[in-house]
């Protein structure tokens, strides 16, 4: 092959993924065959794509291809530049890991259509995500965007017997289309202004007046924010990510919502310098979402919901970085702007790595115990030692603990905020410092959430019979998790090199800005050596201590003199977060409590239960949609179903139209 360029690899990957989507249905009811065909397509396609995207990221070049059908007026365009390559790397990586994990995770009957259905949707989702990031015109973008929504919707409702999943899928479908409506409007406006669907023609937008630019910014924020799960448009996310099969959750949480971040950034590159409130709005929503998301994550009883809310938090952090980058650039805070943008970009990668690891781990726990409820697990580190260890590593990474990858991107965000605060005075300085403080608070709540997940799910005694007999996950699942974990560790140990990779996307987003590595970061060889040494020394020390003799083992945990402790007495997930929930979190995040305690002379049965709600969904969207439904229902009175009445309507309408035609 003479021209095995990165772009060619990328196109080839698209072709292989398409084949991987179309072949499994040909296998019909043979689930095994469908699985082999689908997984082979996904694995080879994503490996090819990963190679292409990685190479494109390294050389930072620009490539484009076009297909025109003049008779139809269609003109589709693919383009690959530094920014697209940067987002394609996690897309293909997670598709690879997800497909690998799925081969061990899916347990299907020998003959059904489920295998074909799953792999068809999975590979279409992979294909559409790759197309969204590589699209060079708005038509192809919207087509693949819609394909992405539909494919992920069908994956969410994969288990058709699960009513909860169907409801979650429905909420997701409605939310994502409401968001897409804003995008349609945005792209129509752009077409009107530029006269072309191609992104390359959108450079005319740079001459927009401030109000026009702000309108586009708001439309992008609403449209892409819905898909990304930006607060307060996040309500679909915990539902859908919790209900989907775990590898799909990983894919959706890890990269699908990041394609919205990509598209948002891409849109911003076309716009002229924005008024300051635009950046502050994005940052403010991001920070609020980070706080609300992680607070809600820390009180969920459902493991996957908890992880999904933590995704809302991480998206919030990414938008915090992007928003403040927009605010800082052009205000004499260039170093801070670069650091904040670099932090946001790196967090996209980091979150893809650790969130996929955590969702895979959650899937393995779900697989082993048959429940998603945190308080019904317990003692699983003993029963699933490898999965447990990897989950612990993922929890440390998301908690930004050294020497893992979460620390690196949060470091960039912190340093950017501190630099910006140091470089400004008065209220503006206070604003940045306030964000630092909130970020610190978010960090502490992340630790609470993660220690709760690890501590209640993996440690202590099994809290249900299923947890008692839980077994370790299969080799395919463990391999996928190990690769993600190695990614977390790798970014933590080689931060200098990874931050160096940000040069390509930064060249697209902020041309002429300095490289973040020149902004006084400590990520050199010394850091790498120290981080590696620290990790190995810690592991070695713990291993030495664990093998240390002089232990009288085999006794029960001291129960303050109580001789027969039972698992029912152990601490629950609800108990663990109760203090924070009652003393730290605001009233709006509290669960609703129903039922009452009867005060009666004689004992009687009474019920009392708490319900965890998403405050935005329960108090915001649900009432609004209920109101719209009732308004729509009141319109039904004119539709009595009598034929004569409809003839009257026709007649009246004709008369009116005639009158209008005559008198106008």
């Amino acid at each position, binding site marked *: 092959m003479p021209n095995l360029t990165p772009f060619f690899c990328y196109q080839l990957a698209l072709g292989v993924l398409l084949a991987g989507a179309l072949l499994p249905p040909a296998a019909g009811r043979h689930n095994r065959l469908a699985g082999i065909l689908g997984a082979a397509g996904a694995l080879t396609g994503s490996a090819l794509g990963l190679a292409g995207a990685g190479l494109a990221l390294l050389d930072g070049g620009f490539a484009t291809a076009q297909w025109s059908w003049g008779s139809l007026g269609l003109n589709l365009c693919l383009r690959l530049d530094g920014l697209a390559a940067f987002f394609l790397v996690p897309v293909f990586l997670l598709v690879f890991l997800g497909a690998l994990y799925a081969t061990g995770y899916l347990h299907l009957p020998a003959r059904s259509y489920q295998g074909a259905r799953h792999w068809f949707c999975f590979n279409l989702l992979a294909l559409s995500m790759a197309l969204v990031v590589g699209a060079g015109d708005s038509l192809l973008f919207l087509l693949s965007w819609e394909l992405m929504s539909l494919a992920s919707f069908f994956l969410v409702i994969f288990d058709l017997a699960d009513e909860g999943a169907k409801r979650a899928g429905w909420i997701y479908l409605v939310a994502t289309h409401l968001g897409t409506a804003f995008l349609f409007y945005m792209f129509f406006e752009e077409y009107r202004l530029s006269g072309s669907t191609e992104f390359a023609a959108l450079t005319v937008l740079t001459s927009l007046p401030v109000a026009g630019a702000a309108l586009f910014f708001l439309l992008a924020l609403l449209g892409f924010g819905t898909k990304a799960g930006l607060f307060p448009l996040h309500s679909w996310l915990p539902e859908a990510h919790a209900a989907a099969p775990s590898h799909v959750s990983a894919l959706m949480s890890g990269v699908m919502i990041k394609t919205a971040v990509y598209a948002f950034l891409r849109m911003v590159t076309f716009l002229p310098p924005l008024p300051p409130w635009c950046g502050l709005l994005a940052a403010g929503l991001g920070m609020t979402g980070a706080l609300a998301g992680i607070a809600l994550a820390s009180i969920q009883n459902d493991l996957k919901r908890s992880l999904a809310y933590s995704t809302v938090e991480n998206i919030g952090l990414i938008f915090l970085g992007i928003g403040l980058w927009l605010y800082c650039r052009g205000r004499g805070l260039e170093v801070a702007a670069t650091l904040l943008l670099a932090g946001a970009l790196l967090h996209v990668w980091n979150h893809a790595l650790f969130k996929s690891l955590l969702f895979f781990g959650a899937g393995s726990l779900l697989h082993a115990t048959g429940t998603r409820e945190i308080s019904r697990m*317990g*003692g699983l*580190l003993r029963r699933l030692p490898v999965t447990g260890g990897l989950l612990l590593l993922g929890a*440390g990474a998301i*908690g*930004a*603990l*050294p020497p893992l990858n979460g*620390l690196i991107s949060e*470091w960039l965000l*912190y*340093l950017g905020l*501190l630099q910006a*605060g*140091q470089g400004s*005075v*008065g209220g503006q*300085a*206070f604003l940045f*410092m306030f964000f*630092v*403080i*909130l970020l*610190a*608070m978010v960090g*502490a709540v992340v*630790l*609470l959430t993660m*220690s709760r997940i690890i*501590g*209640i799910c993996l*440690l*202590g*005694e099994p809290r249900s019979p299923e947890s008692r007999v839980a077994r370790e996950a299969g080799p395919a699942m463990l391999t996928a998790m190990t690769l993600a974990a190695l990614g977390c560790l790798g970014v933590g140990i080689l931060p200098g090199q990874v931050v160096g990779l940000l040069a390509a996307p930064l060249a697209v987003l902020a041309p002429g800005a300095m490289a973040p590595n020149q902004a006084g*970061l400590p990520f050199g060889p010394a850091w790498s050596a120290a981080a590696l040494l620290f990790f190995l020394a*810690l592991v070695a*020390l*713990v291993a030495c*201590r*664990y093998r*240390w003799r*002089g*232990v*009288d*083992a*085999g*006794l*029960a*945990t*001291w129960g303050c003199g109580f001789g027969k*402790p039972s*698992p029912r007495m*152990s*601490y629950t997930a609800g*108990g*663990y*977060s109760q203090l*924070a929930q009652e*003393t*730290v979190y605001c009233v709006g995040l509290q669960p609703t409590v129903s039922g009452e305690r009867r005060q009666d002379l004689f004992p009687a049965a009474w019920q009392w239960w708490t319900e965890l709600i998403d405050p935005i969904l329960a108090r915001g969207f649900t009432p609004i949609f209920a109101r719209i439904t009732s308004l729509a229902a009141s319109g039904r009175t004119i539709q009595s179903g009598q034929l004569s009445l409809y003839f009257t309507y026709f007649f009246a309408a004709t008369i009116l139209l005639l009158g209008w035609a005559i008198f106008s």
Partner: protein
Amino acid sequence: MLASLFFHLLLLLGLSPLLAGIINRVKAKVGGRRGQPLLQLYFDLAKLFRKRMVISATTTWLFRAGPVVGIVVPLLAALLLPLGPVPAVISFSGDLILFVYLLGLARFFTILAALDTGSSFEGMGAAREATFSILVEPTIFVVFIVLARLAGDFSLNGMFVPVRAGFNTPAGIAMSLAIICLFIVLLAENCRIPFDDPNTHLELTMIHEVMVLDHSGPDLGLILYGAAMKLLLSATLIANLLRPATGSPLLDTLAFLAITLLLAGAVGLVESAMARLRLIRVPQLLIGTSLLSFLALILLLR
């Protein structure tokens, strides 16, 4: 740098158990008792390290990892700090973030080791530790920001220098508020009265003591040692700001050490004068401290 490393390790490994002795001695004197020997913690540690330990059948390797991380992390974190005139062993711009997250790592493992026992008692302690850290963390960051703003530097080595501003200037007032906040953070982070009582056992309002209830023998020794180091670390933060800058290294070092020990005495006095707060009051005090640190920040940015 090697000399600095040696001094750090010597101080941390050698001096840290003394602080607990001073606190207990001050408490005893104020209470009219003779009290334990000053070196009691040294004796305790020596005894504990010679013992065997009892380990619950519920626990996993994480239970054993908690004490190890609990002692490695304060040692590492200390290397980022200057100790009086002795500069930090490792110092770079932004190391304050690493400092905070290293302590977070220790907290994470201590919490997990507690939860590993499966006991509700330890679960309660772990939940409290995690919850109160949400309220302590902002204060630490505000204080760090105030110091960084005053010093124009993001490295702990540049931030923790003796106060130069007069106490009637905004900078001086902000600095005094920051020192007060650091002292309260010291009490909270090291589980002293009024946040926690290190002397009680099996009280439902305990935090740290209840988390380590199941550790015994050398593991308990490691935990006590780690806790002593953390206390020393917190005290040196304040002593670095309060120490005089005479220019003579020897004099400065001695003054720094004296202030560190005096701070232990101050902790003892606070513990003698106050009772432990009800658990429900603890968040209020912590939020109050955050507000106080905010005041310092606003004064500085005004």
